[in-house]
């Protein structure tokens, strides 16, 4: 039986297309920041929430063995849920400094939020227009970034910190 080259090419092309579609169906298309672990935080300067003349920059973070940068706002319900875990982290381990960045919020509301739930932060900065959040690769809040003294990202948490994330952070900094 003689099979023409044309038929083989067409058959091969169909098989190739089907296998590409089959593989494509199994790929997870959800945005994931796994690949950003290991990247470095750089070029930022953040004013303190109550004092515009006081700043925190990357040089300050290099002094901490570990820093957990947490984006929060008084209007964000999941931020309330994760707050107890941030308080627990600040009490349990002195090697980690927690930096809070108040995102698109009113100063008075942010201060009331911290007064009501407690303040786990070693420094509270403000990001009134949200531009600083882009420097940290944030796209919604709450989000937290664990970095070391070389400013490398060790872990990025999208959404509120829960018990599992809390324990994971403690394990990572041990």
């Amino acid at each position: 039986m003689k099979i023409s080259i044309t038929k083989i090419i067409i058959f091969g092309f169909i098989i190739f297309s089907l296998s590409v579609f089959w593989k494509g169906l199994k790929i997870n298309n959800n945005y994931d920041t796994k690949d950003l672990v290991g990247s470095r935080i750089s070029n930022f300067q953040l004013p303190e929430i109550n004092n515009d003349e006081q700043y925190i920059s990357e040089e300050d973070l290099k002094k901490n063995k570990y820093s957990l940068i947490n984006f929060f706002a008084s209007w964000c319900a999941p931020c309330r849920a994760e707050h107890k875990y941030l308080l627990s982290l600040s009490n349990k381990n002195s090697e980690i400094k927690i930096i809070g960045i108040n995102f698109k919020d009113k100063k008075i509301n942010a201060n009331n939020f911290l007064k009501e739930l407690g303040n786990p932060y070693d420094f509270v900065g403000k990001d009134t227009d949200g531009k600083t959040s882009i420097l940290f690769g944030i796209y919604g809040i709450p989000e937290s970034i664990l970095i070391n003294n070389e400013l490398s990202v060790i872990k990025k948490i999208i959404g509120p910190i829960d018990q599992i994330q809390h324990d994971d952070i403690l394990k990572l900094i041990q």
Partner: protein
Amino acid sequence: MKLKNFFFIILFLFLAPLHSSEEKIKLLEIYKNLRCLVCQGQSIADSNSDFAATLKLVVQDQVNEGKTKDEIYVFLINKYGEWIVYQPTFSKSNLLLWILPYFIFIAGGLFIFLIIRKSKNSKAN
């Protein structure tokens, strides 16, 4: 002298909107290539979400600083990964993605040419 000043003012009035519209086109091109991460299949040009609005502000700032399109894309890829841009950058891992359409185009043309030639030959015989 007065005429000269008048001429420059007129020239400025004509050129200023031209410059700003060029900038607008550049901004729109960048916005269209940036994926809104919190939306379903939308670029930041099409989205009114909070994230898209913030990203537009940052892109606007960088364009005003004189950064090129590629510099802005590299900056955002470093922050969010390659998923943020619609047009993927050329790399080893996506070499096939860039070359395959050209390959299929050439192979398809060749295939059609061979079929036509074959049918002509069979008609002639």
